[in-house]
């Protein structure tokens, strides 16, 4: 039953991706898009049902391990996108958003351990509910902001188009590489010395280059930029969604600190996840200072937000696999 829910969710997300793509590239009739949205909403509701079901089954917050947290993340991105399409009446994002949501969900369903394990004593706290949710919502907001920055940069010039494709490819390539190495139990040697760590990062860039070149040509051939909103709109969205996520990430970190003060005996424990969340927050702080005070706009500003997103990806995916710390519950 539970597995069926997951698979139907994946099918609905992937079908909505196909319909959105069909709408964006082939047949721009509004009803096509409406069908896409209907299917997407279906996927979203199944997703919600699964989470509720899981909460009932486990008798706790359904984000107690990595599989559950990842599924919550894709849920939050789906929710943010739903809010987004409602708030901006935008028809341009669907294919992009549903693809990302599908990829994250598929990653959790096929690669992560779905067994229900009871909570270790440190996680038995009401903080689990809110600290995780707030942090993941901020990650969802940053993801939407990244989607806008991606579209903005994609339109600017060939150079920016290639590099933003490369940045996205790196995110996908890096996570996949970690996952494959972890699955084959080959990851540990790479985390042992600085040189091997550097080598791993170099590999991830290599993988990113390999993915990015065909992706660049395919996207260019499809001329997807025709369907992107205006530059100002995209810039505004990037800023707005960073502005939404930034206080939430601060809140998530602070709640983590308050929880740590109750559970670990110190509000800050120099744990790598803590530091990387703060690093991500500081990078977005740089973005906001540049936007609000130095009045930076255009490609430079968009790139700063992309760096913030890359740091977020590292915080969310990389830290657990690569750096030792207290957050390794999964």
């Amino acid at each position, binding site marked *: 039953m539970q597995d069926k829910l997951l698979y139907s969710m994946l099918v609905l997300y992937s079908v909505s991706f196909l319909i959105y793509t069909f709408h964006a590239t082939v047949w721009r009739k509004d009803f096509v898009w409406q069908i896409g949205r209907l299917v997407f909403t279906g996927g979203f509701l199944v997703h919600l049902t699964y989470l509720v079901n899981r909460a009932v089954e486990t008798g706790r917050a359904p984000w107690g391990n990595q599989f559950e947290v990842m599924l919550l993340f894709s849920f939050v991105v789906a929710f943010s996108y739903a809010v987004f399409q409602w708030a901006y009446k935008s028809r341009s994002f669907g294919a992009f958003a549903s693809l990302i949501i599908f990829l994250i969900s598929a990653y959790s369903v096929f690669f992560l*351990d779905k*067994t229900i*394990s*009871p909570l*270790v*004593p*440190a996680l*038995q*706290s009401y903080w689990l509910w809110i600290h995780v949710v707030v942090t993941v919502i901020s990650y969802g907001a940053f993801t939407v902001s990244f989607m806008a920055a991606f579209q903005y940069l994609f339109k600017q010039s060939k150079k920016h188009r290639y590099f933003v494709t490369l940045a996205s490819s790196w995110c996908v390539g890096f996570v996949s590489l970690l996952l494959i190495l972890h699955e*084959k*139990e080959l990851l540990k040697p790479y985390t*042992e*010395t*600085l040189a091997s*760590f550097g080598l791993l990062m170099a590999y991830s860039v290599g993988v990113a280059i390999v993915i990015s070149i065909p992706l660049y040509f395919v996207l260019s051939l499809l001329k997807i930029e025709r369907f992107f909103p205006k*530059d*100002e709109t995209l*810039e*505004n969205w990037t800023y707005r969604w960073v*502005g*939404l996520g*930034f*206080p939430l990430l*601060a*809140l998530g970190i*602070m709640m983590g*600190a*308050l929880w740590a*003060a*109750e*559970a*670990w*005996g*110190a*509000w800050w424990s*120099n744990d*790598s996840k803590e*530091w*990387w969340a*703060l*690093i991500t927050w*500081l*990078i977005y*702080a*740089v973005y906001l*200072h*540049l936007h609000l*005070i*130095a*009045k*930076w*706009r*255009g*490609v*430079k*500003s968009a790139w700063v937000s992309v760096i913030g997103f890359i740091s977020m990806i590292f915080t969310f995916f990389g*830290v657990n696999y690569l*750096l*030792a710390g207290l957050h390794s519950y999964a």
Partner: protein
Amino acid sequence: MSKEKWLALQKQFRETQIARFFRSVRVAIVIIVLVVIASILGTIFIQNGQPNDYIQKYGDAGFFWIQLLSLDDVYHAWWYKFLLLILTIATISCLVSRVNMKLVRSGSLFVHINIITILVGIVVGRFGEKGFLQVFENEKNGKMLVEKGFIENPKTGELQRNIKIKELPFEVALNDFVITRYEKPNQRLFILNQEGKSVKSFPIEKGKLLKLPKQKMGLTVLDVLPDARVREEMVVSEEEGALPAVKLKIDSPQGKGEGWLFAHKDDFMLSPDRQVLIYYRFYESKKAMKKGIEKFESLAPMLKKIPNVFQVASGKGFEPRVLRFENGKFKENHTWNGTGPIRFDGLNTSFLPLQFLEKASLQSDIVNVSDEFLNPAIRLAFGTSESGIQSKWVFANQRDPHSEDTVPFEFYYSVDFPIKEFISHIKILDGGKEVMRKSLRVNHPAKYKGYMLYQASYDKENEKWSGIQVTKDPGYPLVFVGFIGMMIGLILMFYVNPFLNRKPEKLKKPSKG
């Protein structure tokens, strides 16, 4: 201070060299970026590790640089503190030069003031204490162990952790230390290689096809029995190697018991004092049986030295009987009447044959006797398309490295009951008097005289002591206030002000970045 006076002062400050430098957004950005880079370094290098760890990983030269730049303790390095100091100065300069009384700006003001509050909280927190208190059950302790860097061992010259004892203004008595566990066990199947290392592991899911890396092999869990027992049963069998067998009940001064004996040279019963031996033979005819008596010599030489030997004999064409040998010589012969036990004069031992089987074999079977996870076992099926499929029982938490499987690895079925809670029932004593009782659990610390007490570790072997972490962080209230203030500021800035301060989007012109 009047508003005019403040504005005049502010103007004066704005014109100073320091303010000009520090309030520039470029400087702010550079400082934040430097803090980011430094913080990243701190997550890449292990912090506060043993010197040997660094030497092993980075070599002597690497260790030299790590120590020189304090990369083994980035967040307490002088240069990191310096960065934070600059950050504080820059934040204050910005605040003072930019403050105006408009509500629109108050969010930003709040955020920055509270960043300073948090930074001050961190500095104040450096005057705190942190230690470890080990308390045994039904004992008390008021001296905590505090770690203070490294110290050279006078004997070996090696660096070791410098541990000091600090007396607390109270004592902690441990009444009881309790561990509770979840009822549902954690089960996993591990695949171990020839060195006994785990190469892969799976959750236990009945009927799911599992794949092993590199081996073209399938694996499935067929059965999961929570409380498995091995049951051996003698059955009539047509298989090759099936032997005649007798089930015998024996009543002797050494003990009572019943069991099966095969008509095989290696199967016999021997009393613990090595005075009595019983074995069983099956004969095709009475004549063969008579010869069997003479062929007593066929027993192994060591068995011949046993003074009292009994042979249960059965077969075709004669009544079952027990033959008695004494010191290697045939003595007498008792035929069984088919009902009561056989007794010999002058002996306290009696023999009662319960069942004779002409062709029997022992079959062992595994059965489940209850639903509680007392002795769990799983049945696995595994194999390749070439080798065919084998099946096998694997009992929980038992290694079986000498198994006769045709596969180059071993299956290990692990079952454990995850810990739900650690609870230390403690009393806090001040001046010998009880002032507080608390059940210390993870996530539920106790607080006394500014100290926080946390359930931190425990005696893993006997559960006789509990490890309590004791901390005192005088900066925490400041940090807490800073958090709340900062959140209020952020909410004002990003959620409230955009609505108060809405400008039509069209009027904004993007400036070139």
